[in-house]
C-alpha cells in the first residue's frame, strides 16, 4: 500500500515537476535576482551617484514634485519614491505596463541624473511575478504554477520522507552521474525546504485572488475603503493620469508633509508619495518591519492639511501584510537579503537538477522519441539559455549607445533574442541527436560572455574604478562565478561520450 502510494507520488512529482518546472525555474531564477533589484538597477545606471545621505533636501523635494507634474502632463501616472539606505536617490516613477521607470534625482540639489534608459532590476521582478504578460494573464499563470509547485513539493516530501532524516546532508558528487544529480536535488530540497515552502506558499497566496476571485461574504469587502486601491501600486497604477488641466499645479512643500506623515504613522521613514488632482498621499516605508504595510496619510493638495490617515490593524490585514513581507523581503538587513539570495539560488539548482534527472531517467527508454528530444532541447534552452540571456542583457546595457532611441526596449529585445537563439539551437541539437554538443557549445558561449562581462564593464568606462566599488564588483564577481561554473560543467561534459 505504502509503496503504491510512493509510486503514484513519484509519477505526480516527475510530471508536474518537469512540466511546471520548465517555467518555475525561470520564475525562481528571476525572483532570486529580484532580491537585489535595486542594486541591479544601480549597476545598470552607473551615471547615478549614490554617495549621498538618504535624506532629501526641501529643494530636491520641490524639484521632484515639479518633475512629477511634468510627467503627469504627459499622461503618465507618476509618483515619487524617497531615498533609502539601499537606494539613496529620489525616483519619479511610472508604470509602463511592465516596469516602474522614470527619472532619477539627486537628493541634495534635485538635479536629474543623465541616467541611461534601462529596465534595470525591475525587468527581473516583472518577469518573476508576471512573466512579462501583464498583471492579469501573467500573474494568473504564475499563481497556477505556484499551485503546481506546492503539489510537486508535497509529493516530493511523500517520496523522500523515509530517507529524509538519515540522508539530511548526503551528497556524493564523485559518485555515478545520476546519483550525484539525485543527491544535489535532494540535499538542496531538504535543506532549503522551509524556504521553498515559505516562498511558494506566500507567493501563491498573495496572488490567489487571480485564480480564486473572492466572493463578497463580508460587508467590509463590499464597501472597500478607497486607500486599499492605492495600497498596491504594482498592480493598479497602469491607469492613465487625469488630464493635465484637472491637476492643480501648486503643491505645498513636501518636507513638512513628510515629517507630519512620519509623526502620524509613527514611522522612521516614509517612502511613496502619490498625487491625485486634490490629494497627496504619503505612504509609510515598507522596509521597516517584517510586515509589508501600505499605511498612509492623505493631505489636501491645496493647503496641505491632513484629510485622513489609514493604518491597517485587523488580524486578517496584518496576516496578509506578513505574507507579503515574507515574500518580498524588503525589511531585510544585508545578511538576510544574502540568505534569501542564496536560498533562491539553491532552489533554482533544485529545480534545474530535477529537470536533468527527469531526462536522465528516461533517456534509455525514450531517448529516441521526438518528445524526449524536444524536452531536452527546451531544458538546454532553459538551464544554459536563461543565464546566457541575463548576461546578454548586462552586455547590452554596457554596449548599446546611450542616446539610442527606445534603448530600454532594445536591451530587453537582446535578452529575448539570445534566449530564443539558445532554445532554438538546443532544440535543433537535441532533434539531430547531438544534445551533448548542444550543451557544450552553449556552455562555452555562456562562460565566454560571463567571464567577459567585467572586461566589458571596465572597457566601457561607465563608472570610476573606485566609485561605489562594492556594488559594481559584486555583480561582476557573481557573473564571473556563473562563467566559472559553466566552464566546470563544460569540462565534465567533455569527458562524456557524444
Amino acid at each position, binding site marked *: 500500500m505504502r509503496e503504491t502510494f510512493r509510486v503514484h507520488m513519484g509519477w505526480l512529482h516527475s510530471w508536474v515537476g518537469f512540466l511546471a518546472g520548465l517555467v518555475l525555474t525561470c520564475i525562481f531564477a528571476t525572483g532570486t535576482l529580484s532580491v537585489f533589484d535595486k542594486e541591479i538597477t544601480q549597476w545598470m545606471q552607473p551615471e547615478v551617484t549614490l554617495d549621498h545621505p538618504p535624506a532629501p533636501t526641501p529643494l530636491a523635494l520641490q524639484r521632484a514634485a515639479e518633475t512629477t507634474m511634468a510627467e503627469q502632463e504627459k499622461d503618465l501616472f507618476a509618483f515619487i519614491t524617497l531615498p533609502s539606505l539601499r537606494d539613496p536617490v529620489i525616483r519619479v516613477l511610472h508604470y509602463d505596463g511592465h516596469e516602474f521607470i522614470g527619472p532619477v534625482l539627486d537628493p541634495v540639489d534635485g538635479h536629474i541624473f543623465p541616467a541611461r534608459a534601462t529596465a534595470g532590476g525591475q525587468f527581473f521582478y516583472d518577469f518573476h511575478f508576471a512573466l512579462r504578460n501583464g498583471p492579469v494573464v501573467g500573474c494568473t499563470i504564475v499563481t497556477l504554477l505556484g499551485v503546481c509547485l506546492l503539489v510537486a513539493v508535497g509529493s516530493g516530501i511523500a517520496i523522500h520522507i523515509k530517507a529524509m532524516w*538519515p540522508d*539530511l*546532508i*548526503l*551528497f*556524493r*558528487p*564523485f559518485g555515478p552521474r545520476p546519483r550525484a544529480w539525485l543527491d544535489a536535488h535532494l*540535499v*538542496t530540497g531538504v*535543506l*532549503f525546504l*522551509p*524556504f521553498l515552502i515559505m516562498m511558494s506558499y506566500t507567493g501563491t497566496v498573495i496572488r490567489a485572488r487571480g485564480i480564486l476571485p473572492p466572493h463578497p461574504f463580508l460587508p467590509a469587502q463590499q464597501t472597500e475603503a478607497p486607500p486599499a486601491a492605492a495600497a498596491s501600486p504594482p498592480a493598479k497604477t497602469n491607469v492613465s493620469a487625469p488630464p493635465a488641466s484637472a491637476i492643480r499645479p501648486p503643491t505645498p512643500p513636501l518636507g513638512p508633509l513628510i515629517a507630519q506623515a512620519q509623526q502620524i504613522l509613527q514611522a522612521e521613514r516614509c517612502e511613496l508619495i502619490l498625487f491625485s488632482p486634490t490629494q497627496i498621499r504619503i505612504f509609510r516605508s515598507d522596509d521597516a*518591519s*517584517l510586515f509589508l504595510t501600505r499605511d498612509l496619510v492623505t493631505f489636501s493638495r491645496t493647503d496641505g492639511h491632513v484629510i485622513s490617515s489609514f493604518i491597517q490593524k485587523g488580524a486578517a490585514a496584518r496576516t496578509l501584510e506578513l505574507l507579503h513581507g*515574507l515574500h518580498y523581503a524588503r*525589511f*531585510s538587513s544585508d*545578511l*538576510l537579503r544574502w*540568505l*534569501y539570495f*542564496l*536560498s533562491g539560488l*539553491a532552489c533554482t539548482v533544485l529545480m534545474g537538477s530535477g529537470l536533468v534527472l527527469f531526462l536522465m531517467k528516461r533517456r534509455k527508454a525514450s531517448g529516441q522519441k521526438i518528445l524526449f528530444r524536444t524536452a531536452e532541447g527546451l531544458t538546454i534552452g532553459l538551464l544554459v539559455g536563461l543565464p546566457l540571456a541575463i548576461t546578454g542583457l548586462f552586455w547590452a546595457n554596457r554596449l548599446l549607445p546611450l542616446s539610442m532611441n527606445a534603448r530600454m526596449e532594445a536591451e530587453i529585445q537582446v535578452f529575448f533574442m539570445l534566449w530564443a537563439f539558445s532554445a532554438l539551437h538546443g532544440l535543433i541539437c537535441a532533434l539531430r541527436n547531438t544534445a551533448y554538443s548542444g550543451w557544450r557549445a552553449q556552455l562555452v558561449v555562456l562562460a565566454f560572455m560571463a567571464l567577459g562581462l567585467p572586461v566589458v564593464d571596465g572597457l566601457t568606462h561607465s563608472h570610476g574604478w573606485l566609485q561605489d566599488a562594492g556594488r559594481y564588483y559584486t555583480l561582476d564577481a557573481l557573473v564571473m562565478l556563473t562563467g566559472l561554473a559553466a566552464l566546470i560543467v563544460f569540462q565534465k561534459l567533455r569527458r562524456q561520450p557524444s
Partner: protein
Amino acid sequence: MIALCVFLAWASAFWAHECLQPRTNKLFPLTTGSKRLYQCVRACAPALALLLCLYRDFEEGVLYCLGLGAVAGLAVSLLMAALKHKQSGQL
C-alpha cells in the same frame, strides 16, 4: 558575530549528524564517548542557534536561523563529500 556563531552551531549539528550515520561511521569510526558527545551536539546546537537568533532579532530570528542553517548544512555537505572522497581514496 552572532551570525557566525549561529552558522558554526548549525554546522557542528550537521557534522555530528552525519558522523553518527552508519555509512560515515565506517570511514570515520567513533568511540562510545564521542558518539554520546555527538548526539548531545546534534540535539543542543540547533536549539542554541535558535536562541542566539531570537536574541539578535526576535521578529526575524526564525528567518536568520533557518537561512543560516540551510547554508551551513550545504557547506558541511560539500566538506563531508570532499573528506569522504579523500578518505576512500586513501583506503
